[in-house]
């Protein structure tokens, strides 16, 4: 029993953090926001460093690291509100491919993962519909078979949906309109219609994606509900850590600011009214971080608590961002409200992180079910 990162994991974190500080300063994020940078240089650097390969199993040429390491990467990307399709590719696309491959191995999936490792393929998970991160809300449907297989449906807020090469689309299996069996289907972005409405954080490449009888390849054999659920847990915990990463950085920059900003001839951080709020912010970040890594560890070790822990982690990260986005902005005062200050990239990333992969409220209702509390309601 050891809930602290190992020395190797801490080294990985420090290494990733140092690279991102150098390669992804706020000026890059600002460039993406203002349309003057497409972050392609950053992506190239990430591929050179082997980050897409980090947690892909060794059998596909990856580095075979575990889910805790993937969580570290997701958290650090949140810390700098990073653009690029890395988050979608490594925390959503690859995990579902790996899960499906485990129960139904195929050379095709192996090739896809090898492409991910090489940095020649990016992908995302097309899961949520009508803004609902829930298998029960999926109406996208596959039809036909073999070469004539197509997928039809609409997915919302797909991570990096405007920039990835491929989607794994979660859709009902052909002929499964009643029984609601779900499968995983590969669709090229070129065969789908991705629209990118202006959103508050343009650096995530969020897109609404329409599949209109889009040519598709089936990846799973039969009902892939279990594999989809397991991949969704990974996406959820990664997004929770991503959110907490943004929150920790909000905390740090706000704390730094309170130590230098002077009013009434003293730094504002010396006022007790603010000190107590910093103590509460610090607790919110530390506890969310601790439970998110517990969930990551449960996934890494395939522990029976992984599903429940993923919901708890997302709820806690949601609670964390609520406090940190609010206090971070409030304690910066007017300067934090300006476009020129970099704070807003983090504020926006924290808010979006709460919305994606199921809001805190949705995960709370799932927990109520798991704890048997909704059964009480039903009776």
């Amino acid at each position, binding site marked *: *029993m050891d809930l*602290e990162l190992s020395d190797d994991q801490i080294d990985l974190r420090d290494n990733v953090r140092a690279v991102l500080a150098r390669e992804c300063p706020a000026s890059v994020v600002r460039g993406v926001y203002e349309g003057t940078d497409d972050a392609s240089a950053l992506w190239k650097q990430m591929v050179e460093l082997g980050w897409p390969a980090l947690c892909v199993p060794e059998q596909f040429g990856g580095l075979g690291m575990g889910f805790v390491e993937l969580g570290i990467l997701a958290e650090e990307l949140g810390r700098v509100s990073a653009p690029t399709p890395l988050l979608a590719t490594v925390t959503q696309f690859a995990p579902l491919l790996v899960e499906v491959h485990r129960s139904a191995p195929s050379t095709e999936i192996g090739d896809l993962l090898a492409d991910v490792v090489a940095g020649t393929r990016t992908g995302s998970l097309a899961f949520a519909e009508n803004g609902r991160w829930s298998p029960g809300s999926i109406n996208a449907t596959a039809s036909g078979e073999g070469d004539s297989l197509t997928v039809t449906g609409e997915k919302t807020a797909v991570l990096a949906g405007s920039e990835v090469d491929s989607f794994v689309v979660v859709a009902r299996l052909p002929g499964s309109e009643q029984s609601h069996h779900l499968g995983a289907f590969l669709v090229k972005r070129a065969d789908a219609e991705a629209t990118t409405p202006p959103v508050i954080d343009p650096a995530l490449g969020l897109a609404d994606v329409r599949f209109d009888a889009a040519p598709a390849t089936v990846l799973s054999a039969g009902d892939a509900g279990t594999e989809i659920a397991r991949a969704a847990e990974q996406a959820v915990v990664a997004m929770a850590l991503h959110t907490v990463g943004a929150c920790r950085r909000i905390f740090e920059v706000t704390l730094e600011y309170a130590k230098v900003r002077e009013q009434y001839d003293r730094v504002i*951080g010396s006022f007790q009214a603010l000190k107590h709020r910093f103590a509460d912010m610090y607790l919110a970040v*530390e506890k*969310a971080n*601790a*439970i998110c890594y*517990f969930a990551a560890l449960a996934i890494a070790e395939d522990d029976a608590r992984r599903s429940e822990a993923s919901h*708890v982690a997302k709820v806690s990260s949601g609670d964390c961002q609520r406090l940190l986005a609010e206090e971070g902005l409030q304690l910066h005062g007017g300067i934090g409200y300006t476009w020129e200050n970099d704070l807003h990239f983090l504020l926006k990333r924290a808010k979006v992180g709460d919305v994606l992969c199921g809001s805190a409220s949705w995960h709370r209702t799932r927990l109520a079910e798991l704890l048997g509390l909704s059964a*009480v309601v039903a009776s």
Partner: protein
Amino acid sequence: MKLRFDESVEEFRAEFLQWLDLNRPSDQEMADDPARSSGHSPGWARAWTRRMFEGGWLVPGWPPHLGGRNAAPIETLVYLEELNRSEVPRTTNPQGLGIVAPSLVDYGTAEQIDAYAMPLLRGELTACLGMSEPDAGSDLANLKTRALLDGDRFVINGQKVWTSGAGYADFCFLFCRTDPDAPKHRGISIVLLPLDTEGVTIRPLKEIVHPEYPDLSEVFLDDVIVPVSNLVGELNDGWKMAGGSLAHERSMVWLNSVMGVESAMAQLLEMAPEIMAPLNQREQVLAADDIVGFYVEAQCARALGYRGFARFVKGGTAPEQALMKMYASELRRDLGRVAAAWCGPASLAITDGRRSDLGLIEGYFATFGSTISAGSSEIQRNIIAERILNLPRG
């Protein structure tokens, strides 16, 4: 990182469980003669402490002659987990076992260890902590109780307040001022005061719940004579030792408070069907969401506490310790408030027992013992802000 305990730790757990099964006090004897305060050790509790001492299970991390078995910290953790699960109190005199005994082992003379620490560990004596005073609460270093060195004895005059367990304890670990001219942190010493000494007057302070079983007392000291051999550590070195004592306390509080939250959470889940039965559907949804919220927090408290433990074991600094006192005590309080709120008029009942149950307003009020004492939540926030986050004092 890993979730499982090593095989050797699980063997340690199994060994303790087997011993516990054979040696634990019975539910009946505990119910028949409950502890009346944190300084009171009923017969069964004294015998239980003695059995733990002799079995090497009282303080597992200590060597056998102090009632331990040189256990590793992780083994002590599973020991505390299992004790908590068994619902047998480790001691009815937590400040004696958790603070006074370790402080004496660290700073006491051989004679003091023989006369005070060992009897504490064998269940023969109980102790209280004389710290707070009317003008020295959160600002503890402001304490004024005066111990005047007079040859080979101290003459002590002053007043302590909020002294837990003083009404029943055998002796007091007393903080007093020995140099009134030194800066306030530098003139404090600790002396051991047998509470049957002439000039000691103890007045119980009735509390807002269970006034019939007061734990807190005022302690008046009028020309109380104590031999100089009862000085613990060096003269005027008390504040530094206070840091040590409180650190002992923190390390206990931090694990026990997580377990306390977990127990309360388990109890709340058990009560859930009963709480929900009379509610309409909309209320049930609200109640379920409240319960889920505490479930999430209890999981967070566990993850944070155990991560702090892991850092502590690896020898690093563990800021979690400072966070846990405030977090766990406030969480336990909030859980008590919400549980009582959902219990409706049933929450108004007062019990005759010495233990306040979840779902009662009296139980909710009782949780304030933890948010106020041993460094209030406000003091904890100051400590976090100033010592961990390095915000300037001001």
